[in-house]
């Protein structure tokens, strides 16, 4: 079962995409985008995992005493979290404006243009 963690990430990503495509509510769509994004956390952490390893922090660990998991992908996951949070905040702000101007958050009803 060496590929199972990667397949979990694929599954989370696809289920998020399905939610995005079928969403009838913009807030729900923003949530689905967050689900898609969480697939990348799973993938990154799965790539960095190493058997019998511990966290790459040496404050209470003798350097070289134990193998450590890959710190590079952990740093990338941190970047991912920050960017994901800001994108979610910006999208939710847009949804608030859409709701105010059009009185609806259903993407299907937002087809007409309005000044």
């Amino acid at each position, binding site marked *: 079962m*060496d*590929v*199972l*963690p*990667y*397949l979990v990430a*694929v599954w989370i*990503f*696809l289920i998020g*995409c*399905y939610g995005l*495509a*079928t969403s009838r509510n913009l807030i729900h769509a923003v949530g689905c985008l967050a689900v898609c994004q969480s697939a990348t956390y799973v993938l990154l952490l*799965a*790539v*960095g*995992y*190493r*058997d019998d390893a511990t*966290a*790459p*922090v*040496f*404050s209470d660990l003798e*350097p070289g005493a134990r*193998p*450590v*998991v*890959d*710190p*590079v*992908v*952990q*740093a990338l996951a*941190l*970047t991912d*979290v*920050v*960017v994901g949070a*800001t*994108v979610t*905040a*910006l999208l*939710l*702000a*847009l949804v*608030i*404006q859409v709701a*105010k101007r059009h009185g609806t958050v259903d993407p299907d009803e937002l087809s007409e243009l309005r000044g």
Partner: protein
Amino acid sequence: MNPRTRLRLVAVGGTGLAVLLVAACLRLPDFGGDSHPYGDRAVRDSLARQTANTIASINFDQRAFDTMGEMTILFAAVVGCVVLLRQTRDEHRARPEPADVTPPVRRYALIALPVALVVGLYVIAHGQLSPGGGFQGGVVAATALHLLYLGADYRALERVRPVGLYEVGDAVAASAYLVTGLAGLIGGTAFLANTLLPYGTFNTLSSGGTVPLLNAAVGMEVACAVVVLLARFLDQAVEIEEESGK
């Protein structure tokens, strides 16, 4: 496009994407495998520069330039939210009524507030030593302030949270990161290169060269950014009302 056609299109595209992704996964290195060339090099560099937390070393030393981009994204998103969520002409502000808070909630919120604030500052300050750092600690510290909203009411929160000041703090922290990077140029090395300050003693607060400084700048920026973001969203929910009455 009616929902049925769209669903069919999604099914076709999704299946294709799924096949490609699974094929890619089968070619990835084995899960839990022992070969992590980038990770091993990152750990070696981090130890060479006396930074106990390898992830802090990657973020604020080896990839410091990328982190600047990340911080800029955060800053731009805050500016975007401030613009999007401003009070428009057909809206007015209504003073929120003080709400009743049950005594246990009030008690625990007010006990947890200073503890959470100190934890947040601790996580920022010890970013180069223990798990955590500016991004995480900043969020904890900013969230701590909002316990006042749960424990008391919105006006109490507003008193400890002059939003204008936090907006200035956000900009100042972002500039501080840039200035620390430029200091390297003045010192005769490269932008954001961690060669200016002594690396200090391993596993003490003053280790890692410029890592703690950049860490602190990011911590301050994140804390201010989260406060400003939440303030804008809370304003929309609590204070701003449409002119034509709700």
